[in-house]
């Protein structure tokens, strides 16, 4: 791996475990890198650990019930080591986030203007007036009509699409280097979805920040991103450019996802789906998590974690099917003692 620019984001061997009535191994040794200004989609079904990865990056997971290990660096900042003031300086300034349901992610009793200005004041120590001017500017940039009056609106006085635009304005107000987007269009109507996606793409060009976009919708992933990482049972099973993933999926799970896609299905075709359901993550996976649902599974798939192979630059597949076709990044390994 040779690169001239340092990575914006480096995640190495991230593990996230939740303790509670039962233990859940949500993220199991995840590696992920992102270059500045790159847009990456993490694609996966519910419970695959997409949102947990984003929340881990902002250390938003409930402290008491969460055990995290591994390394995360953003802009050279060691995220794992951040606490207190340094952590809150990092949140919203270096990395910020937009949420799935803007109606729930905005404080209902503060005006939109106040909520944006609050972030600006927090990170840039400017006067209330200046912060409000910035808020107004941000509302203009997210193309909210009559921004002057919207500034004084409460969240309940806006439509879903407008709220998500306001949320984006809030997240970008302090010019973060990395924007995390947790299914930001899932709660919106289809037509509004497209508008918000197009807006995000424009804003990305304008502000130049890197984006990690989490979704279960392949159509959305294609629309917005440069690269796609497919996530299953708390790890990435395949990663590549959008074209590579769509035209040449290598992992059986990715293939299954693409076949289950409705977007350009022929109406006469029977829809296919992946048989079975994702594994319960109450034990740490010691073999390929997808093997029980995989048509190509062999005996050894149930014995050890799959090797990670590298069919091309920036491409990786965690499956034995790639063996012999691509160089090995990580060999198949016996599970480490937990």
């Amino acid at each position, binding site marked *: 791996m040779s690169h001239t620019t340092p990575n914006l984001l480096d995640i190495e061997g991230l593990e996230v475990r939740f303790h509670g009535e039962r233990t859940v191994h949500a993220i199991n040794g995840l590696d992920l890198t992102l270059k500045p200004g790159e847009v990456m989609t993490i694609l996966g079904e519910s419970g695959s650990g997409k949102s947990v990865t984003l929340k881990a990056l902002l250390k938003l997971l409930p402290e008491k019930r969460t055990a995290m290990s591994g390394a995360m660096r953003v802009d050279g900042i060691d995220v794992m080591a951040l606490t207190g003031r340094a952590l*809150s300086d990092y*949140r919203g300034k270096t990395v910020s986030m937009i949420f799935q349901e803007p109606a729930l*992610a905005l404080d*209902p*009793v503060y005006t939109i203007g106040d909520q944006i200005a*609050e972030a600006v004041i927090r990170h840039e120590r400017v006067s209330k007036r200046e912060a409000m001017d910035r808020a107004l500017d941000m509302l203009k940039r997210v193309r909210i009509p009559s921004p002057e009056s919207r500034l004084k609106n409460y969240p309940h006085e806006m439509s879903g699409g407008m709220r998500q635009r306001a949320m984006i304005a809030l997240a970008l107000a302090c010019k973060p280097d990395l924007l995390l987007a947790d299914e930001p269009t899932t709660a919106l109507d289809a037509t509004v979805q497209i508008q918000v996606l197009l807006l995000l793409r424009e804003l990305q060009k304008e502000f130049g920040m890197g984006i990690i976009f989490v979704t279960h919708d392949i159509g959305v992933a294609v629309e917005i991103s440069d690269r796609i990482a497919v996530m299953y049972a708390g790890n990435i099973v395949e990663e590549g450019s959008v074209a590579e993933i769509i035209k040449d999926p290598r992992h059986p799970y990715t293939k299954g996802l693409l076949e289950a896609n409705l977007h350009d299905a022929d109406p006469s075709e029977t829809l296919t789906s992946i048989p079975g359901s994702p594994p319960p993550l109450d034990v740490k996976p010691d073999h390929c998590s997808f093997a029980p649902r995989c048509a190509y599974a062999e005996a050894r798939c149930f014995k050890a974690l799959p090797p990670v192979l590298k069919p091309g630059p920036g491409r990786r597949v965690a499956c034995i099917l790639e063996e012999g076709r691509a160089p090995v990044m990580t060999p198949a390994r016996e599970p480490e003692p937990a």
Partner: protein
Amino acid sequence: MLAYTLQRLLYVIPVAFGVSVICFMLVHIAPGDPLTAVMPIDATAEQQAAMRAEYGFDRPLPVQFAIWLTNALQGDLGASIATGRPVASEVSRAVGNTLILAFTASLIGFPLGIFFGFVAGIFKDTLIDRAVTAFAITGVSVPNYWLGIVLVVIFSVTLGWLPSMGAGPGGSTNWAWDYEHLRFIILPAVTLAVVPMGIVTRTVRALVGDILSQDFIGALKAKGLSRFGVLRHVVRNVTPTTLSVVGLQLGYLLGGSILIETVFNWPGTGFLLSNAIFQRDLPLLQGTILVLALFFVFANLIVDLLQPLVDPRIKRG
């Protein structure tokens, strides 16, 4: 805003009318003849009838109500059967004393309740939370007249620190905010404050816990707010509902407590009511209940009027 205010004010009229009907009727539904208490035992049937006519008890109830309401609207609540003094002046003196007690109990109960509620809500499911919740439930569950008696036994009888009866050297008419008088109010005010404090604690605890589990708290942290910054948002979110609960409890405090005022011989409305009940003093009873009920209505009116100022989701106008 103006339209909302006017609307709330207009709502008071039918509510107050309903309240007056109930106050008047309740007393009449109660068994027993109001005049037996004041009539000589050997009064003849004619004497009884004459007396009944004098007080107007011989007329049909709706007529009695109409007369009573007309007079009440002019500030005349009739005369006490037992003492012959005007009910309005008796009630207003008692109301003054109850207000003093309610005000003092509010100063103790509400700030403490809100504080404890926040602490328990923030440290939900920890030892602190359990301790505070246990304390609050005890406060709500213990019969407060019993608590009053226990406090009297400890602080008046055993330790001799505080007086146990009455409203101080000024008697029932001349209250003053000085040490000599305040000594007398401590025990009844503390006793009276315990229940509202417990209720406010539990409400605020539940509200804070609920708000802290909302998605936007994560979003507030995500934009870099400190713990204190997040807490500011929690306070603002918790305020509207807390205000309504405090308003209701204030109504309860203004109503005075028959039992506590009786235990401590506090010359307020509760004390007046208990006397009126035992003496079957109908006009006094009706007048006192009416004034107390109207207090409750107005306490709620004030909360309603304040509500849109703290909660933008309540439609204005």
